[in-house]
């Protein structure tokens, strides 16, 4: 998107993988940091009881979210993705604003759903993101229909949809993926093997070792990548997205990662084997690994990253300040918009007596 003009590397450095430019490396870093910082802010707000409803963290999964979304063409009326609760990073990449996320989690009147649907369930189809509904799997048929439309109209656009290891057990995942495969829709699937579905380990969710094996039943290619390696996820996604754009149909990418927080903030994770969380945090944090790669290869300088950290911190502070004390929606604003016509539901009689 940006910085194509800046030469990707200095002659003495190793080449940046996947045709990424230095500017893009920093932009990716910015999204990673923004995701984590924003979620940390949300956690603080949650503890202050300012978040309405559950809070779902993507700690440890920021890498795959950001890197996969980053492979799309972004801008108005370009590619479209459908994120899950743990794909805050993908949303940010597509252009969702921190203040929107904050408003949404705090049910503010000016939030994207004006207090109607929870957490990251919101969308901007022009910018290219379609919020999920809670019912897992349901976005597969819907994204099949969106990408079918791209194909019908001959538009060179691609869709991308996420599914958790647990979510692959749903009937709608199966029906939607099969439909898209048969229709050769330009759709990329990111299967997130993060070891848990709430408290249920993957072994109790399905009988295969890799999610990628599930692709075989649909006649679509699949690849398994290290989900905490930003470059690997980006490269695989880029490949799949381009393939889809060339009319080659659905592509499945499994990202192996780990959900380091509970299902939601209230979950104490007592079911997790001891040491496992610590090990992933210590050895396999996607941002740490990314930073190490950037610095080791001298693609960027520590100062560049520190600058981004500071600017992200400021951005999140500013966004919080803007909306923390905003009002909740007016009660009667609950009624309009169920239908295009009639424009609003009736106020029931007992509210008028």
């Amino acid at each position, binding site marked *: 998107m940006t910085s194509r003009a800046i030469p990707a590397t200095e002659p003495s450095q190793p080449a940046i993988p996947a045709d990424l430019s230095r500017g893009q490396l920093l932009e990716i870093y910015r999204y990673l940091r923004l995701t984590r910082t924003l979620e940390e802010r949300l956690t603080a707000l949650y503890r202050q009881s300012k978040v309405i409803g559950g809070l779902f963290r993507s700690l440890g999964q920021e890498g795959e979210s950001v890197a996969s979304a980053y492979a799309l063409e972004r801008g108005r009326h370009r590619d479209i993705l459908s994120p899950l609760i743990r794909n805050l990073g993908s949303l940010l990449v597509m252009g969702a604003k921190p203040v929107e996320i904050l408003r949404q989690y705090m049910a503010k009147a000016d939030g994207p759903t004006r207090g109607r*649907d929870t957490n990251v369930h919101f969308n901007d189809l022009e910018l290219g993101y379609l919020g999920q509904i809670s019912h897992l799997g349901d976005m597969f048929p819907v994204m099949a*229909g969106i990408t079918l439309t791209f194909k019908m109209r001959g538009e060179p656009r691609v869709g991308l949809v996420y599914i958790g290891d647990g979510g692959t057990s749903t009937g*709608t995942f199966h029906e939607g993926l099969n*439909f898209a495969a048969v229709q050769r829709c330009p759709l990329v699937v990111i299967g997130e093997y993060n070891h848990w579905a709430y408290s249920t380990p993957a072994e109790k969710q399905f009988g295969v070792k890799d999610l990628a094996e599930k692709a075989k039943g649909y006649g679509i290619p699949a690849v398994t990548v290290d989900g905490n390696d930003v470059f690997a996820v980006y490269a695989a996604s880029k490949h799949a997205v381009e393939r889809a754009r060339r009319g080659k149909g659905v592509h499945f990418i499994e990202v192996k990662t780990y959900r380091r927080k509970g299902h939601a903030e209230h979950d104490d994770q007592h079911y997790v084997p001891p040491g496992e969380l610590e090990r992933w945090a210590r050895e396999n944090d996607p941002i740490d690994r990314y930073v190490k790669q950037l610095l080791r290869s001298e693609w960027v300088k520590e100062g560049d990253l520190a600058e981004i950290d500071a600017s992200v911190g400021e951005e999140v502070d500013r966004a919080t300040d803007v909306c923390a004390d905003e009002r909740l929606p007016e009660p009667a604003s609950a009624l309009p918009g169920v239908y295009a016509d009639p424009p609003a539901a009736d106020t029931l009689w007992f509210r008028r007596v």
Partner: protein
Amino acid sequence: MAEITFLEALRQGLWEEMERDERVFILGEDVGIYGGAFKVTEGFVKRFGEARVIDTPISEAAIVGAAAGAAHMGMRPVAEMQFIDFISCAYDMLTNYVATARYRAGLSTPIVVRGPCGGYVRGGPFHSQNPEAAFFHTPGLKIVYPATARDAKGLIKSAIRDDDPVLYLEHKWLYRRIKEQLPEGEEVLTPIGEARLAREGKDLSIVTYGATVWKALEAAEALQQQDGVSVEILDLRTLLPLDDAAIMRTVKQTNKVLIVHEDTRTGGVAGEIAARINEQAFEWLDGPIMRVTAHDVPLPYAPTLEDYVLPQTDDIVKAARWLAAY
């Protein structure tokens, strides 16, 4: 001016909309070369091509969900359920995803889901259902249920043009049994949300829809001749949103009302209508609002049993006679 069947009228409506608006397309099981289990889309694939008449896998949730996705992108999909009984497999998709899309997320989802419903054809428990009650409870959906050939055409065309998701229920007992002269070249559009006065009368009102409109008409004729009772019949045509004004008008006209539907009794649409009449026209009632419906059992297919379980013309006659004498 040719006489055409209910099915042909529906077919014409679909065809005309496909001709008029290239955003309209059809998806469903066997809708292409086979033309659908009841041949509603016969000839469509030849005229409009495989890209606009899509044979799908046996995946009702995917059919409805894909229609929704396409509708978000500005298309006007018409999804066929091979039998409407199979819409139960898309219940989640339709009630949770589709119906709430505009409200929760500002998404426009102008889809039509249509399919053959209803009994009196020995179809048994899984090929005779009337699914309206399951969806009637869902804010965000519209439900239409034509009884005449004209409305079969007029409502499919209005449904396709409507900006909200519409469930279009077509009674298979009417498909080839009902015939009507429809002027060629006339644009037939039945407004969604408006009931139709199917017969004027003054002693008693029957509020009904679908196949039982015809049974009610037969009953009214019998009552007129045998008892001199004058029955007014309101064909609802749209179930969601209900045309309260038309319902209250007829109640205030006759002061007695019989609600008739083919669907089972408990939790059927008649309950809601009874409640609304009670709330909005209680003082006009000269007798209890009574219901003639199917018995509360899954629909058996043996003719003797099906005839017993479903409401028949004779049942309407007896019920109306009882109410008229109240």
